[in-house]
């Protein structure tokens, strides 16, 4: 059987020579950082500095004076060299996360999940890991801009007083989602004064709120308890991706590890959740609603309004078969259905009914927003535009975000903003809205300001800053205090005052201190409320759209675009497409064929009059007749990364997104005769190498039934002479090391287990590693050359059917081989083995022969081809972890199991009463961040440690065992739980 190698092959196999030439020449021009012909900024600066150095050599060289001074008044509890941790919290579009922040001598350097906070449990996602870089982002606004000229904060205050408070016209506030009780109190006071308040988030849960309002007759938010369900059906709900919460990933992974749950996904795009599904039904997103209607009827949802409104089922044969099995499985008990936020309100209403019928584990919480707020942010925004045009609103204050860009295109918000007499924008960085503003005030990062957040589950946390504002900036609280003309303008006093008034002064200080210490308040703001579904509130079935669709999806790293300046998040590969630095028109192989498009060929997408050009990228498993585009790209990134060599990454697709088509819209797609190179980090996506060779066994998986029949299926086979070759990895009998090995029976011996069953492929470990280990971004051009520096490579393989493949994720960092092949080839002994079984790198000794990388069978070593670390902006360098060497150019680097954390733990253990517990608590950054708890680290000599216990499991296997590498990292094989009725 021959298998077409279509992942690597689309561009190469099908492209005409002309196209290929165009691709290559474009690649060459854009990608090579320096060609002889064109002088680069870098080259020029190099020459200038060489000339300068030469010149100054003639005189005398004076180094800039630097002083290291002791504290004249030392801060309490601060020991130089010992990091401090503080609890805080923040939110992303209303989704709150409790955090612990590590701070080195007053510099916050790393975010971790707060283990005591129900929203986290210690885990974080990739986005939260990358958030720390925002604080030190060199593109942040550093000073208020009055009429686009730098001004002081006092001038800003005076401007607000004169232009808004003392002016007569109508005033409105346009805010991002802000579930802050103290801010809401200020809002109520403003509204009492006649100020209009509009909340708009480009990526929101408005459809859910509307659907639940219709079915449950209350303003509620659904919180499915995914850990408690036996069978989960996700209708386009990416609850393991950014659409979900860290807690959901945690709970789902726990049930997954216990081999107790089954996941069905019905969706159009290949989401992260889809990659973890046991059964995934590929339906175009607008057809998911039809599935929901049919499911409601199959499950016997007994509601007259649903029965009346149900459309005629129009499901394919495959979908019907799937539906039948899914419905039976859900009915068998422990069923739970989730609806995606991109789905229309009626799907959410139906799902509320279905979950009620299934008695599914779903909690409904009252929404944090005031009752008077419209359910639909876009509608509220439309009202604002109307009011501005009617002259009712003359002054507008925008709290964060970039609504001029992210608002539905048909509202033409930008035009309306231009008509305002006064526009004040609390902005993070220069953006489309800030360009229109008469006054732009830099917004403080959440690590610079006080606030409070109430999570969807009612958990209240105080946002505690770790550092004084780096720039002249205000928080939303401070700005509102100015707007209200309050005496007290500091956000600390406002937030603290709010709770002091609420709780009473008696014992408040002590309680406040405890809240800050714990990162949350013991009492919840509200509890889950009972809800009974009845009727659809007049919601109707929508009609599927004819012809191709363009679907707008949130980016797993840039979200709605608020992180697009964040180069490290830009460089984190998309979990499914493995693309970095760009969004693309994602389409299935069949769609691409129908359009006559190959990967990296530009296509034009036309929705109404709006037109954008995007490069195509082919992803198997995407629904046919649909292209998927990520929001939030297209920002100008001037010199964000030295080697990016481009001023803009990705394409802004907000112009295509209108009120009516916020999730998807009918589109005209036309292939263009241009190529646009994309930076994909994984060029080969299959486990079978080709030429009819068997699949490589680095990922091992079985179904639950297979596992139960043969629990040791993952154990590698070794040839025994005279016996048939077992299925598994085979080369030849184990070789012996010719060099003397360390005695690994003594002391702490570090090891790691990665559970492929729990790993969702979310990239949290990758970003945590980047933040912990001072790994710089290298830029798109370098990624295109295959030089990304991530120590953890998130491998993603497609398996099975070419149109409908399944996916396996495999995080791969240095495996810390006991007989490491990298070590004996290094001519200068820069990489050697520690007695604790670590494969150490002495960066200062490395001369960069790259022989170690060549000889690494996992290819997990990374080389500094240029001076990536030094070329980071000075402000961005503030984020660095002082316990990790910053690598110079020409040096090889790699995962060390976070040796700095190991050593810190060992120091603590030396004096501890229970050293074992301390040793057991040592966790590398990846393991700490993993929301699924898939990465377990510890001492394998301690037979009672978690890692030892996991290594005894029958699912445990090591990679390439026949090379006698003795890796310290082992994997737990993946066990899928397919429905036997849907098999075959």
């Amino acid at each position, binding site marked *: 059987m021959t298998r077409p190698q279509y992942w690597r092959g689309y561009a190469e196999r099908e492209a005409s020579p002309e196209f290929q030439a165009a691709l290559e020449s474009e690649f060459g021009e854009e990608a090579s950082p320096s060609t002889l012909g064109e002088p680069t900024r870098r080259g020029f600066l190099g020459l200038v500095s060489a000339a300068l150095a030469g010149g100054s050599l003639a005189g005398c060289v004076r180094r800039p004076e630097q002083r290291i001074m002791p504290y004249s008044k030392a801060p309490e509890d601060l020991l130089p060299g010992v990091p401090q941790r503080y609890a805080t919290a923040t939110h992303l579009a209303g989704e709150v996360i409790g955090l612990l922040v590590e701070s080195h001598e007053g510099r916050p350097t790393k975010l971790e999940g707060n283990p005591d906070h129900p929203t986290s449990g210690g885990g974080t996602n990739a986005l939260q890991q990358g958030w720390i870089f925002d604080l030190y982002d060199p593109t942040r606004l550093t000073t208020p801009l009055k009429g686009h000229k730098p001004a002081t904060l006092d001038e800003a205050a005076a401007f607000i007083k004169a232009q808004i408070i003392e002016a007569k016209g109508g005033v409105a506030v346009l805010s991002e989602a802000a579930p802050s009780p103290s801010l809401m109190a200020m809002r109520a006071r403003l509204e009492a004064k006649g100020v209009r308040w509009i909340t708009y988030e480009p990526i929101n849960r408005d459809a859910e709120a509307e659907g639940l309002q219709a079915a449950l007759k209350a303003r509620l938010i659904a919180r499915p308890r995914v850990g408690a369900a036996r069978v989960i059906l996700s209708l386009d709900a990416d609850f393991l991706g950014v659409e979900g919460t860290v807690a959901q990933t945690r709970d789902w992974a726990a049930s997954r590890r216990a081999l107790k749950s089954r996941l069905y996904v019905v969706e159009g795009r290949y989401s992260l959740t889809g990659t973890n599904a046991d059964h995934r039904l590929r339906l175009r997103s607008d057809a998911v609603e039809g599935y929901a209607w049919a499911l409601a009827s199959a499950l016997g949802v007994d509601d007259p309004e649903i029965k009346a409104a149900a459309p005629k089922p129009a499901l394919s044969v495959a979908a019907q078969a799937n539906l039948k099995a899914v419905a039976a499985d859900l009915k068998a008990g422990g069923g739970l259905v989730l609806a995606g936020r991109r789905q229309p309100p009626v799907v959410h209403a139906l799902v509320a009914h279905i979950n009620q019928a299934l008695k599914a584990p779903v909690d409904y919480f009252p929404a944090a927003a005031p009752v008077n707020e419209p359910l639909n942010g876009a509608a509220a925004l439309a009202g604002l535009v109307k009011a501005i045009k009617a002259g009712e609103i003359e002054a507008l204050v925008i709290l964060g975000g970039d609504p001029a860009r992210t608002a539905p295109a048909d509202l033409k918000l930008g035009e309306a903003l231009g008509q305002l007499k006064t526009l004040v924008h609390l902005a993070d960085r220069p953006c489309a809205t800030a360009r229109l503003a008469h006054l732009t005030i830099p917004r403080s990062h959440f690590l610079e300001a006080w606030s409070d957040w109430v999570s969807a589950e009612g958990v209240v946390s105080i946002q505690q800053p770790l550092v004084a504002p780096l720039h002249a900036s205000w928080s939303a609280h401070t700005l509102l205090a100015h707007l209200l003309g309050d005496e007290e303008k500091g956000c600390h006093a406002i937030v603290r005052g709010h709770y002091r008034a609420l709780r009473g002064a008696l014992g408040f200080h002590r309680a406040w201190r405890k809240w800050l210490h714990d990162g949350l308040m013991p009492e919840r703001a509200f509890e889950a409320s009972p809800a009974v579904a009845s009727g659809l509130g007049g919601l109707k079935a929508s009609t599927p759209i004819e012809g191709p669709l363009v679907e707008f999806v949130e980016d797993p790293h840039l979200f709605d675009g608020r992180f697009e300046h964040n180069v490290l998040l830009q460089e984190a590969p998309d979990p499914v497409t493995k693309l970095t630095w760009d969004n693309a028109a994602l389409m299935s192989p069949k769609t691409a064929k129908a359009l006559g498009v190959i990967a990296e060929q530009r296509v034009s997408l036309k929705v109404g009059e709006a037109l954008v050009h995007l490069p195509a990228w082919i992803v198997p498993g995407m629904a046919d007749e649909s292209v998927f585009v990520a929001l939030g790209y297209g920002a100008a990134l001037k010199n964000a990364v030295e080697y990016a060599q481009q001023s803009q990454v990705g394409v802004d697709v907000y112009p295509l997104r209108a009120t009516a088509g916020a999730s998807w819209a009918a589109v005209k797609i036309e292939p263009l005769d241009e190529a646009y190179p994309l930076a994909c980090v994984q060029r080969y996506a299959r486990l079978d190498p080709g030429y009819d060779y068997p699949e490589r066994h680095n990922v091992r998986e079985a179904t639950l039934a297979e596992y139960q029949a043969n629990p040791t299926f993952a154990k590698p086979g070794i*040839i025994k002479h005279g016996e048939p070759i077992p299925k598994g990895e085979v*080369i030849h009998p184990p070789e012996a090391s010719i060099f003397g090995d360390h005695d690994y029976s003594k002391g702490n011996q570090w090891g790691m287990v990665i559970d492929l069953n729990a790993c969702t492929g979310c990239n949290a470990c990758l970003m945590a590693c980047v933040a912990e280990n001072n790994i710089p971004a290298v830029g798109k051009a370098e990624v295109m050359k295959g030089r990304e520096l991530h120590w953890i490579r998130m491998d993603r*393989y497609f398996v099975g059917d070419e149109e409908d493949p399944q996916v396996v994720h495999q995080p791969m960092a240095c495996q810390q081989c006991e007989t490491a092949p990298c070590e004996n080839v290094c001519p200068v002994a820069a990489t050697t083995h520690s007695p604790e079984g670590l494969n150490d790198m002495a960066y200062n000794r490395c001369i960069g022969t790259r022989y170690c990388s060549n000889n690494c069978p996992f290819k997990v070593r990374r080389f500094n081809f240029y001076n990536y670390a030094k070329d980071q902006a000075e402000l961005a360098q503030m984020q660095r972890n002082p316990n990790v060497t910053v690598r*110079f*150019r*020409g040096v090889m680097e790699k995962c060390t199991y976070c040796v700095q954390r190991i050593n810190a733990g060992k120091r603590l253990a030396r004096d501890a009463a229970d050293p074992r517990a301390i040793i057991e608590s040592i966790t590398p950054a990846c393991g700490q961040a993993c929301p699924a708890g898939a990465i377990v680290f510890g001492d394998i000599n301690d037979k009672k440690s978690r890692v030892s216990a996991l290594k005894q499991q029958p699912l445990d296997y090591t990679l390439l065992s026949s090379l006698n590498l003795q890796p310290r990292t082992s994997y737990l094989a993946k066990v899928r739980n397919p429905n036997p009725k849907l098999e075959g």
Partner: protein
Amino acid sequence: MAHNYDAETLFPPPLVDNDLSFGEVTEKICGIVEAPPNHKWLLALIPALTGLTILGGAIGWLIWEGTGIWGLNNPMGWGWAIVNFVFWVGIGHAGTLISAILFLFRQRWRTAINRFAEAMTIFAVICALIFPGIHVGRVWAAYWMLPLPNQMSMWPNFRSPLLWDVFAVSTYFTVSLMFWYVGLVPDMATLRDRAKSKIGFWIYGVLSLGWRGANRHWQNYERAYLLLAALATPLVLSVHTIVSFDFAVSLIPGWHTTIFPPYFVAGAIFSGFAMVLTLAIPARKIFGLEDFITVRHIENMTKIILVTGMMVGYAYAMEFFIAWYSGSEYESFAFVNRALGPFGWAYFIMVSCNVITPQIFWFKKMRTNMTVVFILSIFVNIGMWFERFVITMSLHRDFIPSSWDYYSPTIFDILTFIGSFGLFFTLFILFMKFLPAVAMAEVKGVLPQADPHWSGYHEEGHDD
């Protein structure tokens, strides 16, 4: 018992054509050095110097900017620099082989070509030595590969094949240089004696180490030459064996093979002789050395190319056989991928140039046609460069498919390679002008006149 000897065995043709006398040999060879530089020579020097300048620029930019200017990436830690290194070291093999092994085997025809074959060896090794030095990420710390005593007691890693390389290649260079220089001493003395300028007199005088042609000098010289030849002979085998260890000692499929040492040595001799031919054929024309480097010399060398080419071809076939026979899916995949994968085109070039085209040397007509031989020698050079390229590119698909990638050189890879030819030819062209390109003393030793029984000494002659 009756033997049927053919005429050539009984009466071998003279090794030097046109019945030159001792004086004429001296005149011809020294004439090249003593004549003022002519246009032809200058015209050859200009492109060579241009190449040298390119090399300097490319290396300068490399050191300034970083290894990133090359096309390397993550799975492909080595690229053109290592290919070029092995290529040049390989070329360096012919010189020692001709001068040492053929000397020990009393192959007297070698005398005409040994001088510049040795020169070629030294210049090729100089070119080769550049690459391991500059390919490291931190050039300024490359000396850490040498076992220099230091206060940290930090020694290089003696397990690393790269370190063995350092020793092997530097030893080879040193011995080759000594061998070459010792052979030059009598000829330097000749040049000194004929020098008309003071500077020439002094320079050649110092270089000839006070050589006066005394019987004792000759005895010591012959002894030293023999010893050095014996010393250099194992090096011919060892250097490329060690170089092949860079690959063979690793565990990468396509590198990890025991056939590499003999295969590399055969390949090195193959490429070395090809390069000698590439140089000799134009040089004998330009400098009028047809009497010394005769068609017979050329023909002998083509025979060696034919033999070593087939050895290399055998190795190519055996690699595939063993890959299949090993039962290792990684190993056999590596070879199938080598021939059919993304770098299949390079494999095709390699096999065509190294195995297929040299087969025309079965025909004497082809062996003696200078144009054909010259073109073929270029083919072999190309093929052998691609052999190293193909081997190095094994990196692109090893064990874990997600790390697989492709390699494309950048302009700097190409310029550095071109530049290395500039260095090579600059050195070679300077050598041709300032040093005797043919070993006069040795050639005189193989002239018929050198035979005490030469009929020319006895006009009446014997009735043999």
